[in-house]
């Protein structure tokens, strides 16, 4: 089985299935960099990535580094029925993080206790909208790295 055809981890968690527009995000993530697509002409960042800029229609893009910090915009705690690998980790959390200074980008992710800790490693009762978080990178499979988040401080 080739790396390109691989769609799950050994335990069955889904791996990202990049398309042409999204591939650079995952290539940067594999190097430990959090970057989003931005227009090379009008400089407006955009997420998810797409072929051209909705503001000025330019097809030229760069990949802009995001700060490694942000706050939770919203989150959910899924319970079964789920895919089997996720059922084993339920209840876990899925968050949307708004990176500092990047309003509207809202990256999906998980809050974990450590970079390679499992999805259920943080008590969901510690999460709240507005909670500050910092990015970490988790290697899910050879060459496949996803950004995740750690709480920056305890709930006040």
């Amino acid at each position, binding site marked *: 089985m080739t790396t390109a055809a691989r*769609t799950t981890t050994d335990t069955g968690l889904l791996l990202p*299935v990049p*398309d042409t527009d999204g591939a650079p995000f995952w290539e940067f993530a594999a190097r430990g960099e959090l970057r989003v697509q931005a227009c090379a002409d009008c400089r407006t960042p955009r997420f998810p990535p797409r072929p051209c800029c909705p503001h000025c229609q330019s097809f030229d893009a760069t990949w802009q580094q995001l700060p490694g910090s942000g706050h939770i915009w919203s989150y959910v*705690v*899924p*319970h079964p029925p789920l*895919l089997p690998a996720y059922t084993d980790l339920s209840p876990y959390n899925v968050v*949307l993080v708004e990176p500092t200074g990047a309003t509207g980008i809202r990256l999906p992710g998980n809050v974990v206790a450590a970079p390679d800790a499992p*999805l259920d490693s943080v008590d969901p009762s510690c999460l709240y909208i507005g909670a500050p978080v910092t990015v970490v990178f988790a290697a899910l499979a050879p060459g496949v790295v996803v950004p995740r988040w750690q709480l920056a401080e305890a709930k006040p």
Partner: protein
Amino acid sequence: MTATLKDTTAIVGIGQTPFARRLPEPEKTLACRAVLAALDDAGIPPSEVDGFASYTMEETDEVELAKAIGAGDATFFSRVGYGGGGSCATVAHLAAAITTGQATVGVAWRSRKRGSGPRPWRDTVHQLPTPAQWTRPYGLLRPADEIAMLARRYMHTFGATRDHLFLVALACRNRANQNPAAVMHGCPLTREAYMTSRWISEPLCLFDNCLETDGALACVLVAADRAPDCRRRPVYVHAAAQALPAQHHGMVNYWCDDPLRGPSWTAARQLWKAADFGPADVDVAQIYDAFTALVPLSLEGYGFCGRGEGAAFCEDGALEPGGRLPLNTSGGGLSEAYVHGFNLITEGVRQLRGTSTAQVPGAATCLVTGGEGVPTSALLLRS
């Protein structure tokens, strides 16, 4: 002269199969039964059908349906995408086709074995590009998870509570208990049962989620000048709209300026622009309810209250008979059947015929909506 769809067509027939968690017959058979029932209701022979409209997710295609029911030569057929967002658009497309002379008798339908068949989100091979890449690896797997994300933000932003979502679930369940055809007929819902039920995706619990149903429904449209000759009292399509807002992202609508301002706002603008009446004149509403949390968002979008006021609007029995806006009077997707919202259309027709099992006295206008949270559609019906 500006072309218009206003009152140019009417729904003259509705039909449905039983609804259940599991029906033995295949989807194709159910589709044929629903369509033939709708044609019989209208008193129109199948050989006169020349227009078809359904969902892109519909598995029984026009060829299979037309040759089975004995349709005539079809001159219009159309499919609308985005699941339950397309429900009302099927009627809208037929209305446009009939008004512009492309067809004379149109049939819209949806047949689905979602109760006994597979859950679409379990298919991890044929994934939509955005969820596959940006959300599914993190375990945001199901529509319930995707909408729960917006629901929590909505509750946080506007002070909505689980009690508000309960009021939506309760209104639908109460109406289902008046409707013998509803899957949840005979199963009352209490606040305690709601508050202690299992989570599906916090903050949404079991009763915030629609049913999983096998069933099929259909309706028949003709031009307004022919409608009075049909068997039943015609229900006119007063206005219709589709809506794909600028910078909308589908059910994962997290990346626009204001994710709590969904497609219903765009549909509403188009709908009210075309209509002779406004939100205050709507007698009864059938609002898409795959999840309870979609209802407050829709109430705001369609202008029944201000932004952020959708949850509070549900208080004081507003959604119950005699309230400000009786809601989903057959039980809706939450408690009658979840067939991608087509049962909301047929219930809208029954209300304006005066034949609902939870009839709003004298109802003359009804709003029907497709799925909020995805590219959507809506109808204003009048008697």
